[in-house]
């Protein structure tokens, strides 16, 4: 009950509760990291969403590589929905756990958009990707996904925000996971990524180009090329995953099947408009 007095909870207790509920990765980010690093506009600071916020607890569950590789399939879509539902439930129950012990907390749900809203304004109320970055789960890579040691970018994320001040986990050193190999950029069906790898920490991402794939490619409604092509992640070894060249052969086949000329714009082509990354 919220009226009962506060019961001490350690970071380890909270992390083990999150794992018991189903989280594979758990990290803690003090809210000060948003302002310190300044990657996002001040508007997306956790305290803007909830002024009492002290710590963001970021959690992830993996997207299993062999399923992610079948990215245009019903199986892939199903995995996407199931992992999102699981994450929402984990986050809600972890918030309930904290509240029950007298530490105010709210979960920020996974799906940040009503249907079709993403095409109009592809910015969510809170970025789980950057929360994962500040909580030390991984680093935001060239493809604007959180690249983790365990799963590369093949996972889904959720966040719980609490007024309980907790020590932050060490952040991943910049460039230690994403070495800007640009395979994601080259594999992307819609040339959504662009930029200069010598100057830029990550690509410019044209989210509108990414959404447009549905109109352009009948056989790539649920695309995941920038995820499956990423060479980072211990999961590749676990699954004995396919060679990257296989993905590029598949890419060529999709263009042929849907009658789209291959690489109208060269994948390493012109700069596209910069859109803030606040994936829902």
């Amino acid at each position, binding site marked *: *009950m*919220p*009226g009962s007095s506060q019961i001490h909870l350690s970071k380890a207790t909270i992390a083990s509760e999150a794992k018991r509920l189903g989280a594979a990765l758990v990290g803690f980010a003090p809210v000060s990291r948003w302002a310190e690093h300044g990657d996002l506009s001040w*508007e997306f600071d956790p305290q*803007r*969403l*909830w*002024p*009492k916020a002290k710590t963001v607890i970021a959690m992830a569950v993996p997207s299993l590589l062999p399923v992610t590789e079948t990215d245009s399939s019903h199986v892939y879509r199903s995995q996407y929905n199931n992992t999102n*539902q699981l994450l*929402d*439930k984990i986050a*809600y*129950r972890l*918030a*309930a756990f904290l*509240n*029950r012990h*007298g530490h*105010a*907390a*709210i*979960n*920020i*749900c*996974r*799906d*940040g*958009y*009503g*249907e079709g*809203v993403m095409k*109009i*304004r592809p*910015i*969510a*109320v809170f970025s789980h990707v950057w929360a994962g970055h500040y909580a030390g789960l991984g680093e935001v890579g060239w493809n604007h996904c959180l690249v983790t040691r365990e799963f590369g970018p093949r996972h889904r994320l959720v966040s719980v925000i609490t*007024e309980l001040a907790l020590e932050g986990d060490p952040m991943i050193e910049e460039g230690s996971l994403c070495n800007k190999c640009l395979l994601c950029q080259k594999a992307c069906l819609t040339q959504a990524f662009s930029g200069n790898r010598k100057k830029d920490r990550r690509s410019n991402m044209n989210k509108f180009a990414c959404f447009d794939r549905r109109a352009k490619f009948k056989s790539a409604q649920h695309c995941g090329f920038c995820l499956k092509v990423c060479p980072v992640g211990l999961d590749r070894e676990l699954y004995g995953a396919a060679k990257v060249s296989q993905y590029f052969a598949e890419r060529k086949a999709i263009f042929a099947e849907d009658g789209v000329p291959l690489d109208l714009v060269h994948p390493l082509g012109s700069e596209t408009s910069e859109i803030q990354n606040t994936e*829902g």
Partner: protein
Amino acid sequence: MPSVSLSKSDIVAQARALGAELVGLAPIDRWNDLAEVPANRRPQAIWPRTRTVIVLGVPLWLPVVEAAPSQLGREQIIVTDKLLEEAAYRLSVFLNERGHAAINVPRNSEDEPDSPDEVPRVFSHVWAGQLAGLGKVGRSRALLTRGFGPRQRLISVFTALPLDGDALVEAPLCTRCGNCERICPAHALSTSPGQWLATVDASACATNHKRLRAAFRDPCGFCHKVCPVGEDRALFGSTDTQKYFDEAAVLAQNPFAPQYQDWLHIRKYGGLPLPEDPTSIR
């Protein structure tokens, strides 16, 4: 199936393990004297073998409720309802596996204004919550609990197993402040002198919900956010209900008034603009 003896505390522990934050039990005879629930909506009319109703609840977090109408609020309802449906179903299976017949009654039979003209209202989880000792029905006809005021979702499991009921909440909980009636944007609540529970204009409430749903911003929940009852208000540090009434006037003077920026931020993203609500399109 062989019957395994189950104590009330075993069942409550299982419900909590499945994610219920509130659990209460009501023997069916408690419906006998409740005029508000007609005979054909009582547990035994729905399933004749019912002996006990187990009511489960999960709270809604005040900081999300008070930012409504927002897409985040809509997601919170989707997530809590899914959790409840699963918990109730699994609790029924848990009882059945031990030889005690049980069924879960889904959430959408609730006498709530989501779509009263479309969904037949089979069973009231709200009145079941009162009879199971979780709280007391307040002026707005929501169940008020000590923990969360009206800010929780409820579901019920019917079982053939006779179990002791939980103690009823004797205190009225509802303070008669009238906040729910005053804030309602649909003017759906009205109370005549001497009337304890408000009369609900379900169609006015539903019309407002449909407007919000079309923008991915349902539910409204204004009558929930304004309720001063609930220990969650102190937990989340939001005890001043006048703030909700002052909002429009303060923001008309100063759209950047700091005390409202969190709600405005939450409203800004994820839903479609509401033409008549300037704070939704900033």
